[in-house]
């Protein structure tokens, strides 16, 4: 390095046209934090982008709107809890519970990953930003994992924030706060485990699909197809095919897997047709692992090979 460090020759205010480039240059002598810091920076930026932060106003409409809608059932649940608790003396059961909350917010989660998954990974492909990322302190897999971690975190916010609200509502709404806390706190492991499983599986699946194309419309359509059409197809096949195959065929739909897993974790009975199929909880857990694992494998493989 033979260059000299020139002093700044122009004060910030005096940017005369004649001296546009004549501003000197200072070398950076501070620390370079390396790959881990780069990963964290990409994760934080991506998580912010999930909710449209740091992006124009229109980018915030869908994610923030969905977050509000996700919170609505919880708010309603708290209100219903309070009202029914007072009027019927607690004999009427609140329709919104932890174990079916996933079912209630599932549509919102699908909309969220279908909108924000392509935004997270397709945008960088569409505008060829990947070559800038891959030519920095990151490795290709770091990029994919940071994006995945960001979407998982965003889904956890969508899942856990309302459930935390329900939790608070149930505890504070009960006649005996201490007892209500005791009743509800035992459900915490199930709440967290089911949310984490759903968040990882859905985020991985959505990103794996979205990473395959730079086109947002295709990616969104593919995500919808996988989450919705698979349920319908599995449902039809379930009634058409008899025997064990007819039962387990329900597992082709990611939605069914996650609903079954959630019900099992809360020791509850899932909705039909999963209730009839009577698939063991262990099978649901295994299916979730296979689903998330294969989606992550597709995602990482895609980024190991993608041209940049």
């Amino acid at each position, binding site marked *: *390095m033979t*260059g000299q460090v020139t002093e700044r020759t122009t004060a910030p205010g005096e940017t005369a046209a004649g001296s546009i480039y004549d501003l000197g240059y200072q070398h*950076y002598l*501070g620390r*370079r934090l390396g790959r881990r*810091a780069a990963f964290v*920076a990409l994760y934080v930026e991506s998580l912010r982008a999930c909710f449209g932060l*740091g992006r124009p106003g229109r*980018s915030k409409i869908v994610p923030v709107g969905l977050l509000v809608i996700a919170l609505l059932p919880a708010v309603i649940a708290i209100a219903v809890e309070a009202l029914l608790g007072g009027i019927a003396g607690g004999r009427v059961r609140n329709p919104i519970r932890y174990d079916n909350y996933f079912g209630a917010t599932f549509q919102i989660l699908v909309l969220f990953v279908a909108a924000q998954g392509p935004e997270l990974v397709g945008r960088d492909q569409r505008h060829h930003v990947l070559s800038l990322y891959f030519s920095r*302190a990151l490795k290709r897999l770091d990029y994919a994992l940071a994006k995945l971690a960001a979407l998982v975190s965003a889904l956890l916010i969508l899942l856990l924030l309302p459930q935390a609200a329900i939790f608070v509502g149930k505890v504070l709404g009960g006649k005996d706060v201490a007892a209500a806390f005791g009743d509800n706190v035992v459900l915490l492991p199930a709440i967290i485990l089911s949310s984490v499983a759903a968040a990882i599986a859905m985020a991985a699946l959505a990103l794996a699909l979205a990473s395959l194309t730079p086109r947002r419309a295709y990616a969104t359509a593919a995500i919808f197809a996988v989450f919705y059409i698979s349920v319908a197809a599995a449902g039809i096949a379930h009634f058409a095919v008899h025997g064990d195959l007819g039962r387990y065929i329900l597992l082709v739909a990611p939605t069914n897997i996650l609903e079954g897993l959630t019900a099992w974790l809360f020791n509850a009975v899932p909705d039909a047709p999963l209730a009839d199929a009577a698939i063991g909880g262990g099978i649901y857990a295994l299916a979730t692992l296979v689903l998330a694992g294969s989606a992550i494998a597709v995602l990482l493989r895609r980024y190991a090979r993608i041209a940049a």
Partner: protein
Amino acid sequence: MPLISTRELTKRYGASVIALDQLTLDVEPGIIGLVGANGAGKSTLIKVLLGLLEPTSGSATVLDMDVRQQGPTIRQFVGYMPEHDCLPPDMTATEFVTHMGRISGLPSDAARERTAEVLRHVGLYEERYRQIGGYSTGMKQRVKLAQALVHDPRLLLLDEPTNGLDPAGRDEMLELVRRTGTEFGIAVIVASHLLGEIERVCDYLLAIDAGRLLRAAPLSTFTTRTGVLTVEVEEGADRLAASLSRSGLTVREDGHLVLVKLDDERPYDVVRDAAAELGLALTRMEQRRHRLEDLFRDPTDDLQAGAAHAAANGATEALKAVVPGDGAAGAEP
């Protein structure tokens, strides 16, 4: 410490396409022009050096670090400006360059400070708070340069930095590149197929063709001011050559042409006088400089180009006498 060093570096795409063919070179810091026709392997070489592409075989080091083993570490000290568009339209230049600084390993505060600095350096002021999508091509090129400089790299790799720019934008970009190399002491490699641009900013030249190193030498040896005077006569080139030779000039006869070594202005007069004396029809008299284009000219082209090609290559023994010093500028590695 060499800036870049490669040994038999080979990159194949599939079975048939060889983008880099056993490329061996050593490059010292400076402003280095990487020239070659489209498809010569310039972009591939840059991407291999960055670790964006895995070499098929051979080895390469950048700043004394192995590209296969130390990719992320190397890339903390290297800035890259790709040839193609690479900017998200929905962020402001400030946000984007700051983000890229952090991805390069800078702490947040430093990333913000350096972003303000480099955006000023590339000549973006109030526009830096506007979204990139609304920028002109020239402004986008500046942002691309800024993101490559934000982490104060020791080596800057620029792939066709003047792509899509109008003549004024071209001049400004080349001036920025030149300043980056000279005043800031950042080594720069500029890949371009436009030799005129390379001539203007670089002090060292790497010429590659079909993935092979054609030549590596200081730019001055490619475009010597002391050139060759090409004299074309309708007939009697042999007599003219003999006459000029007697007058003490170094000449070589080449068909209709007489090539005269040109150190000063004297040969012009000598040629004029000799032609008049011999009664020859002097068709053309032209000072030849070695031109970068000659590097890539097919040797089987017309005679004149062939002679020039030989001059640029330093390959023809006869011309070595005419153009001293050229032979010494052969490919070094």
